[in-house]
């Protein structure tokens, strides 16, 4: 069978699954006991395996198969997630990604993954190197419990328990076994909880309350309990209930509790009935989550972990080749042109019915235009979703603690911009974690929390989308930047003395400029902020730095909503019409011949206190039927490239318009001073002026 026709589908879907694997793994790492996430991961891996096997990518299939073996043990509670397993699984996902990349590039998806496979197999055999094992045993011993069952506490629960101890309450670890012939074990369990809650509070149970409710446990469960009563008293109380096989209640002291808190997720334990540990019992001291109730709300309990596991929201979509959308756009612009013609004809004919119909058609096609444009819009999420994993790896390799907070991931941008913006953002994020966020020791010394925060924000503003990367790191000192620039000979000491802070920050974008004292593995690969700036500029965007020394830095990237539609000023030169992108226009005006001076043979113009060159568009473009030199007064458009300004002489301003950018075709890839073409309402082609070409 010819598989080529399925290849692109395979690649698309594989990438989706890999993304979902990455996201789910991140979610699982944050919440290692949530087995529902493991289910999501397992399903993705399983689908991937099936697809790869069908397509004949054996290496891919066998690696996913090994991953599945590990995940299978985890989801069946035979294995507990821990750092080593996470790292191995992440490595596996990386290997899968590079295989899929290879396939995308036309390769066979082969890769040497023996090391990873043997690691995975070792995990399956139970040979897990674990640093946490030793202390786990201590904890088990401290609890004096024969059962190896462990209940892992999160930070919050741990602090609740610790506080209770300090306030003189008893903290008990209670292990309850129900008789094997018990008919309604959930009811028994409920009775135990009910009893316990009369004289204290259950902070955490294992399995979770929801699972116990749904009889998702064997014949035993354990819990942490705060009370005033003695351990033996509690033991007796529970044993008084019928169908209870055995109860052990152990009082914990500060020391054993501390060890348990540290061991969270670090130990392997053959728990009799481990299952996802969700929330503490509802009555848990100060626990703010009302959702976890002993009684109904099962829906709630089920739905929440599914969402946390990164399951995609059920929006229904289809994949469309971007070229088909381009065809749709072209057809649509034709329709618009016809509409303009129809409107003209209707106004000449003066027939009421006709005018009405044409007006209605105008409204419908206006709505249609909006929809067509929206089809090309993609949420920035598609770029952002790979960053959590990247930041995690980066923070680990730099031995820093970093939280990445993403907001506005649903902000939409044109597909053409989305495709280009990934690399600059990667660079800025790396920059933020590497140069911005301090080491843990430095942060503590500066009185900041150990964990640094990187905020990645996207939002709409007017005709632009802003993407901001803000961290609470050490900030940028303009003085240091200037000193470094002087040292490198980029500017002189005199220039440095007169530069404002903003100008100093702009120096960071100069080629070959880096303030990093030490070149680390992460940055310093020869790619500087100048490349970021150039890329963003080429997209018609802009980067700005705001920094408060000692407090943090904000890189703000301003991007156009789309590359295919821009606001432009239409101007006339004789019989020809040109469009000048509004984004580079500073202002328009009229100058008298007398105001134009010649300096060194160049025509200059005084503009706001300085002299700027005046460029004759009609001469440069050799316009046949217009020459401004004979005019008494000349209309000018002042355009900007960075700090430099140039005035372009034109004949008339026609007005501002939203224009659809088209290229000049493959035969004319580059024409000096022209960046593309657009089709005007009357069907005529107007050329788009590239103002940058006039500014050296």
């Amino acid at each position, binding site marked *: 069978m010819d598989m080529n026709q399925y290849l692109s589908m395979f690649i698309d879907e594989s990438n989706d699954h890999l993304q979902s694997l990455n996201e789910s793994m991140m979610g699982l790492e944050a919440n290692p006991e949530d087995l529902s996430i493991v289910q999501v991961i397992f399903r993705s891996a399983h689908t991937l395996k099936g697809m790869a096997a069908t397509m004949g990518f054996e290496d891919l299939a066998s690696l996913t198969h090994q991953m599945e073996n590990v995940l299978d043990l985890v989801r069946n509670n035979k294995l507990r997630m821990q750092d080593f397993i996470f790292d191995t699984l992440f490595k596996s996902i990386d290997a899968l990604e590079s295989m899929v990349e290879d396939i995308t590039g036309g390769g066979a998806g082969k890769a040497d993954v023996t090391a990873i496979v043997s690691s995975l197999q070792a995990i399956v055999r139970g040979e897990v190197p674990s640093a946490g094992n030793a202390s786990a045993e201590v904890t088990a011993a401290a609890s004096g419990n024969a059962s190896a069952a462990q209940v892992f506490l999160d930070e919050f629960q741990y602090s609740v328990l610790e506080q209770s101890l300090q306030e003189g309450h008893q903290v008990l670890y209670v292990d309850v076994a129900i008789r094997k012939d018990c008919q309604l074990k959930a009811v028994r369990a409920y009775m135990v909880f009910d009893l316990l809650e009369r004289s204290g509070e259950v902070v955490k149970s294992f399995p979770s309350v929801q699972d116990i409710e749904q009889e998702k446990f064997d014949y035993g469960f354990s819990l942490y309990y705060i009370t005033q009563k003695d351990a033996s008293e509690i033991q007796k109380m529970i044993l008084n209930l019928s169908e209870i096989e055995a109860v052990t209640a152990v009082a914990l002291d500060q020391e054993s509790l501390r060890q348990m808190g540290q061991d969270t997720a670090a130990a392997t334990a053959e728990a009799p009935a481990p299952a996802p540990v969700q929330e503490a019992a509802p009555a848990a001291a100060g626990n703010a989550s009302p959702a976890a109730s002993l009684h109904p709300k099962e829906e709630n309990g089920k739905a929440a972990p599914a969402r946390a596991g990164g399951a995609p929201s059920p929006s229904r979509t289809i994949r469309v080749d971007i070229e088909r959308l381009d065809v749709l*756009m*072209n*057809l*649509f*612009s*034709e329709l618009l*042109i016809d509409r303009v013609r129809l409107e003209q004809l209707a106004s000449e004919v003066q027939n009421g019915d006709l005018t009405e119909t044409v007006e209605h058609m105008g409204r419908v096609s206006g709505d249609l235009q909006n929809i067509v444009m929206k089809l090309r819009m993609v949420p920035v999420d598609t770029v952002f979703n790979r960053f959590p994993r990247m930041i995690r790896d980066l923070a680990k390799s730099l031995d820093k603690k970093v939280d990445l907070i993403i907001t506005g991931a649903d902000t939409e941008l044109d597909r053409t911009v989305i495709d280009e913006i990934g690399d600059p953002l990667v660079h800025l994020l790396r920059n933020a974690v590497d140069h911005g966020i301090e080491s843990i020791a430095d942060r503590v010394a500066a009185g900041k929390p150990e964990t640094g925060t990187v905020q990645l924000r996207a939002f709409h503003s007017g005709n632009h989308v802003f993407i901001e990367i803000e961290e609470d790191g050490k900030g940028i000192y303009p003085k240091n930047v200037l000193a470094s620039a002087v040292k490198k000979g980029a500017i002189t000491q005199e220039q440095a003395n007169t530069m404002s802070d903003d100008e100093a920050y702009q120096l960071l974008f100069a080629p070959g400029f880096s303030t990093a004292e030490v070149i680390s593995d992460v940055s310093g690969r020869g790619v500087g902020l100048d490349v970021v700036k150039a890329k963003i500029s080429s997209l018609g965007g802009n980067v700005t730095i705001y920094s408060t020394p000692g407090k943090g830095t904000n890189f703000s990237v301003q991007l156009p909503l789309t590359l295919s539609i821009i606001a432009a000023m239409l101007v006339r030169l004789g019989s*020809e019409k040109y469009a000048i992108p509004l984004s580079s226009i500073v202002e328009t005006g009229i100058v008298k011949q007398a105001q134009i001076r010649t300096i060194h043979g160049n025509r200059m113009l005084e503009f706001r206190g300085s002299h700027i060159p005046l460029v004759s568009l009609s001469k*440069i*473009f*050799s*316009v046949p039927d217009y020459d401004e030199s004979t005019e008494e007064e000349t209309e000018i458009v002042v355009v900007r490239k960075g700090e430099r300004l140039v005035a372009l002489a034109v004949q008339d301003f026609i007005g501002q318009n939203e224009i659809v950018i*088209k*290229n*000049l*075709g*493959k*035969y*004319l890839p580059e*024409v*000096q*001073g*022209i960046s593309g*073409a657009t*089709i005007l309402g009357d*069907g*005529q*082609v*107007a*050329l788009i002026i590239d103002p940058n070409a006039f500014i050296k």
Partner: protein
Amino acid sequence: MAEDIKVIVFKLGTEEYGIEVEKVQTIERMMPITRVPKTYSFIKGVINLRGVVIPVIDLRGRFGIEEAEHTDQTRIIIVNVNEMEVGFIVDSANDVIDLNRDIIDVPPDVVGGIKAKYLDGVAKIGDDRLLIMLNLSEVLNKSEIVQLESLEG
């Protein structure tokens, strides 16, 4: 017997030329052309062909023949070669004929003043009709144009 090919026949002055029909997208009547400054003189500009911007070449100019006034007969032949869409302005285009490859001869060194490299061959139809088959890749080859321009400029 070699196969038959379908050929679009068009005129420049008195000469008749042929382009294989697969390479021709459409034949359009003359339409408004937007001049593109700073490019070769034979590129007349760009047109809006149903929403797509396409450059238009005056084939007379390209071959160094004196350019002519556009008439009712003037046509723009849109060709698609090497993924490039280009329009050729020709004096007229009004025939499609079947041609047997056998009757296409290797071009003589000079045919009607046009460099032989632009030609694929010459077909003799009937007694007095000569059809010049164009080598479109060469006609659209720009590296050669650059050379020409720099020589002239």
